[in-house]
């Protein structure tokens, strides 16, 4: 259908590396501006991980006394999992953005210009990765204030942010693909939550095996 034909156009463009880079930068900046100008969205996507951090560390603190618990405190144990979950949750909104751009016609408006087709996706992915890293830093600072100090030091933290950025990239890529395929933000949301929640509760991120 149309979305398939639009996809063909998406990957069919040419253009050199310089235009790819500058186009990516402009699209990246556009999404950041949109994000900053919608502070409510930003606040709400931070509320959940912060709630998890505060709530679960209170609830599950006694896990630590279970023999063989892999960390000194529950906070220390759960923080990385919460960071990843935040990365998933935020990057998942990516698909919605492309659906919104399809609905408003903004995507079509980009596609009738010689803008690099790859930059349209890359700009969005990078803006998601950037957002996830900034949110992670906020959560990390909070965890630090609550008493967690990373055993691996600053290098460990940087490595962690780096990993999270890549998780964000991958997850937002999946979300973008779903968005382009289904053209429905409800579907993106449904599939997104379907994928995220079981993953979190089945994983060892909040409770040790």
């Amino acid at each position, binding site marked *: *259908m*149309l979305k*398939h*034909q*639009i996809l*063909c*156009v998406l990957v*069919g*463009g*040419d*253009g050199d590396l310089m*235009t790819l880079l*500058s*186009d990516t930068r*402009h699209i990246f900046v*556009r999404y950041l*501006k*949109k994000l900053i*100008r*919608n502070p409510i969205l930003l606040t709400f996507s931070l509320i959940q991980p912060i709630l998890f951090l505060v709530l679960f560390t209170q609830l599950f603190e006694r896990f630590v006394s279970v023999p063989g618990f892999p960390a000194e405190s529950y906070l220390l144990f759960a923080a990385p999992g919460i960071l990843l979950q935040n990365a998933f949750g935020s990057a998942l909104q990516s698909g919605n953005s492309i659906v919104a751009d399809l609905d*408003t*016609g*903004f995507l*079509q*408006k*980009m*596609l*009738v*210009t*010689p*803008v690099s087709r790859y930059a349209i996706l890359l700009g969005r992915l990078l803006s998601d990765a950037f957002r996830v890293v900034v949110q992670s830093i906020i959560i990390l600072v909070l965890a630090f204030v609550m008493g967690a100090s990373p055993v691996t030091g600053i290098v460990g933290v940087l490595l962690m942010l780096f990993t999270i950025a890549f998780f964000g990239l991958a997850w937002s890529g999946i979300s973008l693909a779903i968005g382009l395929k289904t053209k429905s933000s409800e579907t993106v949301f449904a599939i997104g939550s379907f994928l995220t929640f079981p993953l979190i509760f089945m994983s060892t991120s909040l409770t040790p095996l």
Partner: protein
Amino acid sequence: MSNMIEVKDLVLVYSNGTKAVDTVSFNVKKGEFFGFLGPNGAGKSTTIKVLTTLLKKTSGSAQIAGYDLDKDSNEIRKLIGVQTQETAIDGDLTGRENLMLQGHFQQLSGSQLKDRVDELFKLVDLEKFSDKNVRNYSGGMKKRLDLATALVHKPQLLFLYEPTTGLDPQSRSAIWNYLEKLNKEDKTTIFLTTQYMEEADKLCNALAIIDTGKIVAAGTPRELKEQVGLDSIKLDLKDCDKDKASAIKVLKELGGVSNISETGGCLTAFAKNASLIIADIVRSFDSLGIVLSGVSFSPPSLDDVYLQKTGKRIRTEALVKTPNLMRFGRRRR
């Protein structure tokens, strides 16, 4: 090479089997102001999507400024400006940010782009609002900004999708003036779709009418009107319901009236030469006591052409008062 657009046997079939464009051929000359008209669902949007590289055609051939639509789509994108059906501007950005972004997409930058953006704000009369968030713009302001974004790179070929729909008369005539200037002075070729026949008549020097995927008429507005060839006589009856039937009967008996249709005011009669027959109509009505509240006639209009070619009447609200060629005094009781 004098053609800006050359379309031959263009077919577009959607994946659900709908043949939205069915073997369409037409040319648009360089510098022409081309009107592309047709009722809803006729295939206008689909044709535009193909010509603006958004949809891959199913078959046929199409060239824009000599570039092949499939092979050279990126070259084509550099020389076309497109105002789409949706007023697609980003509400989270300011007017200036929207225009700059569109300029960047067209690979413009630096002071060249800045100057162009300032020039465009002046042009669409949004200077005072350039740094306001577009979310706070009115519908008409958005429409004007949208037009500006399509012009940022001074395109050789401009696609306009109903550029004045929803605008107030003042903005509308401002846009008309600007488009005429763009076409005459900058030699921009313009491909226009509109719901307003009057707009097409005023602006376009070539027209094509599409219906259910096929071109049903093409030519200059004058040629098309001559094809229809009948004047229309608008008869407003004081008591339309009561007198309509007898009025139709009288008109049919009168030689020279070739067609009658029931329209807004009451009746419209079509005749080869209205000025000769109108006195007869008035006299016969008088003798039967049918009271006229107004009579006017006009040479064939694009509306009539459209009606005859598609069997549908396009939206007929008057945009700007046009003086009738002749208007009889209103008879009042």
